[in-house]
């Protein structure tokens, strides 16, 4: 069941088109990564669906409009930097959020435990480190036990320890069955946390689907043999080959990650084909991402 549907949203700032006819479907239970380089329109998209930014055209609907668009308790959000009243304590800030959401404050202590801030709950927000602020932002998003979480660059600006802590918390939240929409420019983060991904660049959707199908760990193979055609025929029966290119007597292609060069050698030998050159290279997610976003 769709939790959020985005239908052809476009947002322009003067001559710059921040989001360009974007269509997305996020279903309940998915951990959906919105992946794109800086300035690709991720935050603008989130701003639009949260009602902070007015789109020039297009529509969006939450939970198939079953409760209108009143998102008070259904959606928890971190957008860019953590925004709290600096002169108030963590506890007071979270109580204020609970007051806005019109929910009880009895779960605040448990949420502070989850984000490991219980021991600093009575410290003012302006005494917190960046990592603690980000964890408090996660706590704020969890007030009212929302079923959908929007996390915009949740590890931005954190040190490696902070990144690891925040990711651990996100995984714990994900395990509880909540739907998460996470915007990030970090591939590694999306790959480690998300089940689905949409790649955007300059506000345009380039690809969307399950993480495995979009950002697959394929192996790039370069081959020269005395019978390339027969070799390809043999490979095609056993593996899924893609992006085949021929360059002189050399052939280049991508193959599933379960491919092994030893197995290919054996297969060629058994069928009377001699391989004179073989180079295998694992395609990194970065390469995959760059290829998708290249020249588009």
């Amino acid at each position, binding site marked *: 069941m769709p939790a959020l549907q985005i239908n052809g949203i476009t947002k322009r700032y003067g001559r710059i088109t921040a989001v360009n006819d974007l269509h997305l479907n996020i279903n309940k239970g998915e951990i959906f990564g919105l992946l794109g380089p800086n300035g690709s329109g991720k935050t603008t998209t989130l*701003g639009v669906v*949260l*009602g*902070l*930014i*007015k789109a020039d055209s297009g529509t969006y609907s939450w939970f198939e409009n079953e409760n209108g668009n*009143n*998102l*008070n*308790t259904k959606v928890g*959000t971190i*957008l860019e*930097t953590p*925004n*709290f*009243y*600096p*002169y*108030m304590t963590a506890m*007071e800030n979270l*109580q*204020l*959020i609970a*007051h*806005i*959401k*019109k929910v009880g404050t009895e779960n605040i202590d448990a949420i502070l435990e989850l984000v490991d801030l219980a021991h600093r709950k009575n410290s003012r927000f302006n005494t917190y480190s960046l990592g603690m602020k980000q964890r408090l932002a996660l706590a*704020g998003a969890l007030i009212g036990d929302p079923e959908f979480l929007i996390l915009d660059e949740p590890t931005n600006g954190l040190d490696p320890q902070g990144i690891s802590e925040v990711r651990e918390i996100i995984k714990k939240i994900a395990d509880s069955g909540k739907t998460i929409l996470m915007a990030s420019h970090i591939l590694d983060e999306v790959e480690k946390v998300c089940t689905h991904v949409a790649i955007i660049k300059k506000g345009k959707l380039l690809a969307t689907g399950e993480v495995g199908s979009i950002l697959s760990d394929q192996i790039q193979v370069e081959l020269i043999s005395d019978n390339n055609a027969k070799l390809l025929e043999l490979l095609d029966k056993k593996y899924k080959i893609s992006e085949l290119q021929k360059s002189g007597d050399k052939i280049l292609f991508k193959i599933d990650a379960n491919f092994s060069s030893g197995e290919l050698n054996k297969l060629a030998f058994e069928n009377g084909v001699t391989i004179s050159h073989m180079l295998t290279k694992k395609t990194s997610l970065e390469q995959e991402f760059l290829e998708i976003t290249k020249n588009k």
Partner: protein
Amino acid sequence: MGHLIKLEWLKMKNYTAFRVLSFLFAITFPLLLIAGKRIEAGDQAQTFIDSFYSFPTVFEILGYVGNWLAFFFLGFMALLSVTNDYANRTLRQNIITGLSRKEFILSKLLFIAVVCGVVTLYYILIGSAFGFFNTAKIYPSDFAESIPIFGRFYLMCFGYCVFGLLIGMLVKKTGLGLFLYFAYTMFVERGIRLGLHSQIHRGSMNYYPLNSISDLVPLPIQDKTDMIKGQVDGMEELSFFLTSTEAVIFSTIYIAIFIFLLFFIIKRRDL
């Protein structure tokens, strides 16, 4: 309604600027009146000064002192309550959390309405205390006569606050907001009114927004200015102040326009 007032209270109760401004207002208000009473003057002047502290004049004098204090402290407080939410990006966060844009403005308006109510009660309390100790013979009618000024005092406080909210909403930045709030009232509007408008048509030069709000509780010298007008040629059409009724009508209109603009701006603005 109570939910929105409480929301603003939760934001403001620990805000240092709110505490300092409230404290300064609370002590300056009676202190200025006490200071005025301690001025050494000749017998005739002393009798004149003493008359300020008896019923019903005490409410006019204290109201005028409150006029300046409300302009500074309450207007600034209202302005800061908006710029604070912009500076900390908590306006955006409030909306993300689930507050509607309309509720955001409504919470500010309701909160200042309550603050102005408390300030008006404080004004009545101080005025009554001064009047009680400085009036030789107290007639209930003297107190009853002052009731309309209580209402005008409340409207004046509310007017300054709504104007403060509007400036805060327009410029978002605290420093620039305070400068504009002060500069518009003290120089821009006065400059246009006295420097330009008075040259074209004197009779209508007092109907400006902040002047209307200020004239709700003016310096109680209306009788003396009327006397001057009667004695000097060419001054007949000159009016120093709006009448109370005019001030109430025009202030109400301007406050309604300010409130409309507040909702208009927040509805259209990207956050």
